């Protein structure tokens, strides 16, 4: 007999089946999750806030509903958590500027998860306003990588990656402007899914760069991520970015494998900046996909990583600085040093340069669309380096604004707007996880997730856990 205490690394859907069959109690599951958070969070820093009493009340309600047959769906009674950019109770965006602030309204995605019966256990650590890298000297202690607590878990949804990887939640929601769901997923060895732009409402989520921001789930399997997506997706008239066109997608839609799937590999984009350890894991993943029947071919994109990241950053810095301008005027010292400097850099971008970046973005979208006319999905590593050590203090601005940026291959999908998912593809010799990223056509999230699910099932990396947190 499995007890709630032994389920912390189980998949969300597996636990959901057990809850529905009344083999496990939502209350016991929530108690076990809260106890694990209490025990491990001081060392891992995944959560800023834990809603212990409220979560237990939600679990009791779920238990009563399931007992009388009123099962709401796969996340009913499941402990999950939200990045601290979603308005819900104390909402800080990881900034001392907002420390002590309590949200007046709940983010729409939170309400949708609540309507699906989720037990919301807390708010998760983030890079300041989803941008400045967390450091050891921050106002809020940084989240730590479960595979090596002296290293970053990747950001900006740091706590979401850690909570899912260390068994402190069965799923989490982050935000992704340039890779902030997929990067922590890659560095923590879990799944991170950025849906097509506009499929998950951002109403009530503190923005970074509104034209690039996405909401997305992190989970221990592709099917779990799909279930989390399905629970909160749908048009929201209160979010101007919400797409009227929507998709229906459930875990059962992931079957089918990759036989005959055309996978393009844009080596000209990712290969020059990639570390050998990451490349080796990625090539092994490609070989596995080929063995499974996929047609893997080179797909020259005609874009460099620097072009893509330069365009992404010019747009992000400009939009973020415009949003933060009132804060910068009234509280010039209210934000951390790296974030404050990055925002001031954004204020230096002339209107004409921002408009040029938007036109360049359209060129990038065109090139990706041309590739996706020939291929069903594009494959590349999620990020070309392993997780860095946590810095002792703010990094110099020239580390972020540089002509030699850290190789984050995630920006391409934010600029394009189509779906992208990061799935674990093994461990580097240093014992740190590596992520495989698959991206696809807008609104064809199903193909991308189906391929990721097939790879995950075949490769088995979805089962890997750090042995530091048994």
């Amino acid at each position, binding site marked *: 007999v499995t007890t709630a205490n032994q389920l912390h690394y189980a998949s969300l859907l597996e636990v959901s089946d057990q809850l529905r069959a009344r083999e496990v109690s939502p209350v016991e599951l929530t108690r076990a999750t809260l106890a694990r958070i209490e025990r491990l969070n001081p060392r891992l820093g995944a959560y800023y806030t834990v809603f212990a009493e409220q979560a237990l009340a939600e679990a009791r309600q779920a238990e009563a509903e399931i007992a009388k047959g009123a099962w709401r769906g796969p996340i009913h009674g499941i402990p999950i958590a939200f990045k601290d950019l979603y308005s819900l109770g104390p909402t800080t965006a990881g900034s001392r500027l907002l420390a002590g602030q309590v949200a007046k309204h709940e983010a729409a995605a939170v309400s949708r998860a609540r309507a699906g019966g989720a037990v919301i256990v807390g708010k998760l650590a983030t890079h300041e306003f989803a941008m400045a890298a967390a450091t050891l000297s921050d106002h809020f202690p940084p989240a730590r990588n479960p595979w090596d607590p002296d290293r970053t878990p990747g950001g900006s949804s740091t706590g979401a990656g850690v909570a899912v990887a260390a068994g402190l939640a069965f799923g989490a929601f982050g935000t992704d402007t340039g890779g902030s769901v997929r990067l922590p997923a890659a560095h923590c060895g879990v799944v991170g899914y950025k849906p097509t732009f506009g499929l998950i409402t951002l109403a009530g989520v503190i923005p970074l760069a509104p034209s690039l921001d996405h909401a997305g789930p992190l989970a221990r399997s592709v099917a779990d991520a799909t279930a989390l997506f399905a629970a909160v997706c749908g048009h929201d008239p209160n979010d101007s970015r919400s797409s009227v066109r929507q998709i229906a997608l459930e875990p059962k839609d992931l079957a089918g494998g990759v036989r005959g799937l055309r996978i393009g590999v844009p080596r000209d984009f990712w290969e020059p900046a990639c570390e050998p350890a990451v490349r080796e894991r990625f090539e092994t993943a490609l070989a596995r996909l080929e063995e499974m029947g996929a047609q893997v071919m080179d797909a020259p994109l005609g874009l460099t990583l*620097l*072009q893509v990241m*330069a*365009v992404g*950053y*010019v747009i992000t*810095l400009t939009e973020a600085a415009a949003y933060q*301008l009132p804060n*910068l*005027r009234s509280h*010039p010292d209210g934000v951390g*040093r790296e974030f*404050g*400097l990055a925002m*001031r*850099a954004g*204020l*230096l*971008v*002339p209107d004409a*340069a921002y408009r*040029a*970046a938007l*036109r*360049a973005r359209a*060129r*990038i979208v*065109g090139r990706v669309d*041309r590739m996706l006319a*020939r291929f069903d999905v594009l494959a590349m590593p999620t990020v070309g380096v392993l997780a860095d050590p946590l810095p002792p203090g703010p990094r*110099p*601005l*020239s580390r*972020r*604004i*540089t*002509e030699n940026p850290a190789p984050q291959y995630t920006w391409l999908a934010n600029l394009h707007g189509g779906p992208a998912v990061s799935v674990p593809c093994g461990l580097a010799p240093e014992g740190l996880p590596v992520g495989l990223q698959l991206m696809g056509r807008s609104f064809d999230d199903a193909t991308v997730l189906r391929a990721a699910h097939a790879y995950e099932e075949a490769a088995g990396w979805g089962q890997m856990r750090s042995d530091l947190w048994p």
Partner: protein
Amino acid sequence: MDSTQENEATLASRLEAVGVSIAPDEAEELLAAYPALLAWMRIAQELADEPVEPAGEK
């Protein structure tokens, strides 16, 4: 005026125009990153200015 002084003047006047202050040590750090920001803007401009490829071209 050399290019560093020019950049310093640009930076100070732009921030002043939008009513945002900056400490001297931060200004120095921003100034050090400014050439890379200019490079990013130039890269974006060049990509934006590339001739449009005909639809259907592979």
